[in-house]
Structures are given as C-alpha cells and as structure tokens.
C-alpha cells in the first residue's frame, strides 16, 4: 500500500498532527524520519495512506499545522511531493 510521509519538525508537532488527523477519522503512524528526508536532521514522520493526503492536509491546515515536507513512499523509495 502506498503511503505518504508528512515530515514534522518535532515529536510534539508530529503528535499534534496525529491527533488532529485522528479526530477527523484519518489513521496515521508516527516514526523517526529516515535520515535522508530531513536536511536538518532528527525529524519525525506522520505516515498516512496516500489516498488520504488531500483531506489530511485540509485538516492540518485548519489546525494551523504545516508539514515541513511531504514524501510519497513506495517500496522504500521516496519522492518529494511539491504542493
């Protein structure tokens, strides 16, 4: 299954994003961001199913949350999604 990785700047932001998405029925998982995806080092990923990206971004935007970057993940490869 394809996933989209929303890069959060900190664990606290990732947790806020996770809870915001959960309240709107969008499931997610938090884990440490792969080293190559964070140019500042030490970030967190909120992983969602790719099909939920649009509603997820809308919910996050309404909550004042903005991912640092967004990546599509497929078979261990990552492609940045430019909005």
């Amino acid at each position, binding site marked *: 299954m394809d996933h989209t990785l929303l890069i959060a*700047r*900190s*664990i*606290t*932001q990732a*947790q*806020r994003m996770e809870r915001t998405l959960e309240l709107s029925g969008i499931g997610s998982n938090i*884990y*440490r961001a792969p080293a190559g995806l964070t*140019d*500042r*080092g*030490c*970030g*967190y990923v909120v992983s969602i199913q790719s099909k939920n990206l649009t509603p997820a971004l809308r919910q996050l935007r309404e909550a*004042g949350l903005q991912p640092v970057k967004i990546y599509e993940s497929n078979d261990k490869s990552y492609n940045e999604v430019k909005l």
Partner: protein
Amino acid sequence: MIYFDSCATTLEKPESVREAMVQALHTMSSPGRGSYPASRKAEEAAYQCRQEAAELFHAGSPENVVFTMNATHGLNIAIKTLIRPGMHVVISGYEHNAVTRPLHTISDLTVTIVDAPLFEPEQMAAGFEKALAGGAQVAICNHVSNVFGCVQPIEQIAALCRQYHVPLIVDASQSAGILPVDLLGWDAAFVAMPGHKGLYGPQGTGLLLCNHDTDTLLEGGTGSASRLQDMPDFLPDRLEAGTHNMPGIAGLLAGIRFVRGLGLSPIAAHETELARYAASLLRQEEGITVYARPGFDHQTGVVSFTVKDRDTEEIGELLATRSIAVRAGLQCAPLAHKTVGTLETGTVRLSTSVFSQKRQVDTFLKEMRDIIRE
C-alpha cells in the same frame, strides 16, 4: 507532622502521582529520541501533560506549554526574553526574588514598583495603569503573593497591558491549580508556574506557558533539527534543551489530572476556608497581628502573622519541634515585606493544601497558644 508550608511545596501528593513516577522510572526513556516502546511511552506522557496543561490554562496549542525545572526557571526565560538594559519595567510590590533577582542582573533598568496596600486590588490596578501610561515597556505581576496570599487583579492588569500594547509576565506560582489561569484570555506574553505546588507534581518540574517569541536560556540537544547549530526556532523544543525529567513530567501529568478531577473552585474554597479559620483563631490571641482582612476577601489559603516581641524564626523553630511545618522569615520575598512593613521581622506563614484539615488548624492553634505563653 502537620504540614502548612504548601506555598513552598506541597508535601502530600495524590497516590496517582507516586504511581506515575515509579512507572515512568521503569518504563520511560526520553521523548524524541527513538521509535522503541520506552521512548514512545515517554513521548505520549509528555504530550498528554502538555495537552492537559494547555486545556487547564487556556494556552492554545500544547506546543505553547514548555517544561521547566520550576517557576524560577520559567520566569528567568520570560524576563530575559523581554527585558533589555535601559528598559522601563513595572512590577507589583509583592514580587518574589524569582522576579526581582533576574531584574537585578539587568543593567540600567527603570523599575516602577506598585506598592499598593495589602488586599487593595483596585489600587494595585491603578498603580499599574499609571506606570503603563508613563511608558513602562514590560509588566510583571504575581497572581497571588506567596507571603500574604493576596490575589492580584490580573484580569484588570492584563486588560491594561493589552490597551497599552505592553507584554505581561504572570507569576502563577501560588495560583496554578487553585485559581483560573488563562494565558490566551489575558493575552499574557508568558505565565510561569511550578509543578510541585498547587499542581501536586514533584519538585523539579514547572511549566512556562508561552504566547510570545522566546530567547533561549540554555542551548543543547533537543532531538530535533540536530544538524542545525542554532536552537530550533519553534516551541517547545527551543526552550527544552537536554534530557527531560520524565518521572517528573509523568508525576506532573498525574497531578494535573488530580486537580482537574477535583475542580479549581472546590480546591480554592477548601484551602481558603482553612486559612480564614486559622486567621480567625489567631486574631483571638493577644499580641498576634494577622495579615488578612476580616472578611478574608482577595486572599487564598495563605495567611501570615507576627507575634509581638517574639522572633518569627524562633516561632517557626518552636512549631517545628511540635511537628508543625510553617515558613518563617522573608519567604524569599523581601519586596513584599518591604511593601507591608514587615521587612525587619518577617512573618510566620501558614499555607494550606487540598489535603489540609480543620483539626490540623485546631492543633496548630493549641500549640501556638502554648508557645505564646512560654
């Protein structure tokens, strides 16, 4: 022991706080350091603590809730963020050394001290307005005096600060967990509080509620943006360098939940009633000056008193030998004593908690009568 020194720290804690701390010791590592279960447990506890605090204190986002070591730590961050040499600052005449000592280190400050009489909030508010109209650039006020328990008119002062576009720092050390604290409603820049007093968490914990950009007091690892050598420019990481006190934070979370479960009004009513009762009994004794209004209005569960021709520290010692804990002397707030006129003597301070009981006040009075007659 009868413990009446909750203004210093609450000694009796809910069982849930102890349990949470013990569990944290065994099961939590550090938040923001890994994806393994122990780090996740720590992350979850830390976030829940921030969220509960944000809800209780109307701080908006949990990210606006910063963990500190104590209120002093938070006040130092706030003061050193907002105040630069040469500025004009207004403070109440009841501030703790946690405010006055950091100000003392900043050069060329003009500090206007509003030394309104005890339990006269209208005069305090008027004094702040005069200072703000006169060009004060930062306002600092405690919500409740740690010496006299007097409740300051924070809502009025906050409204004045909004009117004059002046940032406000509130020291909520003696009000958090007792009176409503409202960061966003006040539009205060910062509200600092300890975790170990009215929130019934352990010592070594505190919260700084942030509604303003911040300067750092400490720099170090945050588990975020590690390649950068500047501290992160976002909260809470910007102000939380180093390893978190997870047993403390877990305990603080349990304490906040305890307070929210009881509700602020019942807590305040219980503590204030005991202090009012103590004040009424003390007043019946000859030679005792009680710093409280007859109706005990504008006051929380804190009452200070002096005994004619008796040393306050000696009285504190004598009570201690009778297993009664109070605090005597200046309570780290010489400015408050200067304002009221007790700088030379200090006071004996009795401060209650939600665990204090009426029979303990009765025992305290019995012992005080014996001491006076010695």
